[in-house]
């Protein structure tokens, strides 16, 4: 299984924000979509950073005046990007070791989606559950 099989059932919306927008706006977008992270994109919709609720919490704990700051001041620039053909095994283990919860996916330079660690865990669980189920059915039906 690969990243494409996750994106196929997520519609094609990725919630993005621009680097020059404020944290107040970013919080509004996070709340509106009930999500935990935004992809920061440039004019050509190329991902240049990530802004997660954790980034904001970390700043807010030190600086109460976080609201008017620009997204660019808080975002993570050290970006890991996925590709649709990447195996979920590799993706999952990289997300766990690097402690990444959200992975923007790029195809031919264009942002095509985002997968969360929850998506990866669910896809792998469904895959293993499916294998177990198939084997169980075969074993049970043979007994008849």
């Amino acid at each position, binding site marked *: 299984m690969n990243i494409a099989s996750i994106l*196929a059932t997520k*519609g094609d919306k990725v919630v993005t924000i621009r680097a020059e927008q404020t944290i107040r706006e970013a919080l509004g977008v996070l709340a509106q979509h009930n999500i935990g992270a935004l992809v920061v994109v440039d004019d050509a919709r190329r991902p240049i950073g990530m802004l997660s609720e954790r980034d904001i919490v970390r700043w807010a704990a030190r600086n109460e005046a976080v609201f008017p700051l620009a997204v660019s001041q808080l975002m993570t620039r050290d970006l890991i*990007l996925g590709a649709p053909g990447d195996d979920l095994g590799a993706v999952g*283990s990289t997300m766990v070791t690097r402690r990444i919860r959200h992975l923007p996916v790029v195809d031919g330079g264009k942002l095509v989606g985002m997968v969360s660690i929850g998506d990866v865990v669910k896809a792998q669980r*469904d895959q293993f559950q499916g294998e177990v189920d198939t084997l169980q059915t075969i074993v049970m039906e043979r007994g008849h």
Partner: protein
Amino acid sequence: MTRQTAVRPLRVAVVGAGPAGFYVAEHLLRRADLVVDVDLFDRLPTPYGLVRAGVAPDHQKIKFVTSAFDKVATHPRFRFFGGVELGKDLSVDDLRSHYDQIVYTTGAQTDRRMGIPGEDLPGSHPATEFVAWYNGHPDYRDLQFDLSQERVAVVGVGNVAVDVARVLCRTPEELAKTDIADHALEALRHSRVREVYLLGRRGAAQAAFTNPEIKELGELEAADVAVVPEEVELDPLSREALERSGDRAGAKKVQILQSYAHRPATGKPRRLTLRFLVSPVALLHTGAGGVGAIRLVRNRLTTSATGAIQAQPTDRFEEVPVGLVFRSVGYRGLPLPGVPFDDKWGVVLNEKGRVLDPDTKQPRPGEYTAGWIKRGPTGVIGTNKPDAAETVTAMLEDAAAGRTLEPVEPEPDAAERLVRQRQPLYFSYPDWLRLDELEIARGRASGRPRVKFTRVDEMLAALGNRRGP
């Protein structure tokens, strides 16, 4: 409507009677808290989708899963309408006026192309067509494959590619014990194939086949298995990836393949060679116009940002003479008439099984999808069960909230009248069970699991006047 009762049950049409369609039906019908009617449609007279038309005939055990589907079909609120095609016999609007909910489970019906010069030369075929042909799919039974060729390339190392290579290497005696279609058995009896190449783009560690599948290739009665020793050596990237993920099955897979490098040829009439780190770049023709050779580029492995291992072409090429090529580099879904399609992933445009409006990206009330046409062609048969469960959860949530279609004729009889009017020769589940008995009886005489009917006319004739519910 918020509660489905025996007086006004939730009426659901499921389009496509493969595993995904049956799992959707199963999840709906086993609900104790509400009454659901399921009508399952298929464009073929027979149910089971790829379990009948895809799973290899020499893998009968996997086909036992159909007994679970037959149990679903015994539910009094289940009906099957075989030989009825969406877009031909019925439209989405027809379904909308008879059902509260529609589920599309039509699978991935076409194959991906390699996108290389010579791909359409005579002698180059999608592996899926060969599979449908040897499994007796009525639409493919009259295809011709030039089995007088001695050398064959199968592009890909997934399940389908491995099945095709194995079937090509089987003896007529081995195949005669299976339910392979009669026309295919007869053609394969006269096969002159001697050399079969399975071509993998990435390394041995990344190949999609399972360990039982490659062991099986090493135990063929009339074919020696071979690998190119340097192609199955474990490269540093793959070694690191296997260690990091603790993937023991993957490590074992490489070991089995390496053991094939040291096997002496035993003089069996056929040879199956597993190649890795090669991609086809062109098919070259002979003077006569058919495929004469396949040109390959050697690949090396690199790691992507997420640690996934990828193949990168080098500047080293080779040509392998072959007269027949089967490509199996992936399946792809086909758009359904009147249903939003996501061209990028080759699936019905959906979010967790809810079909989306292409303009608003909001769910279209009452329309859902499951299986390969929802998520793309991944996983084994059973993977469709959790996948169908996700879709059914969304369906029941929406039904409870009153977000369904508003059919003008929700009565079960009205739907049946419509089908009868559009396709008088439709097949019911009792019809299928009768055909199933007849196929098994035909097989018993020759010691085979079954002898399949491969023409719709043949099926109609076999049922005679017994047809109908």
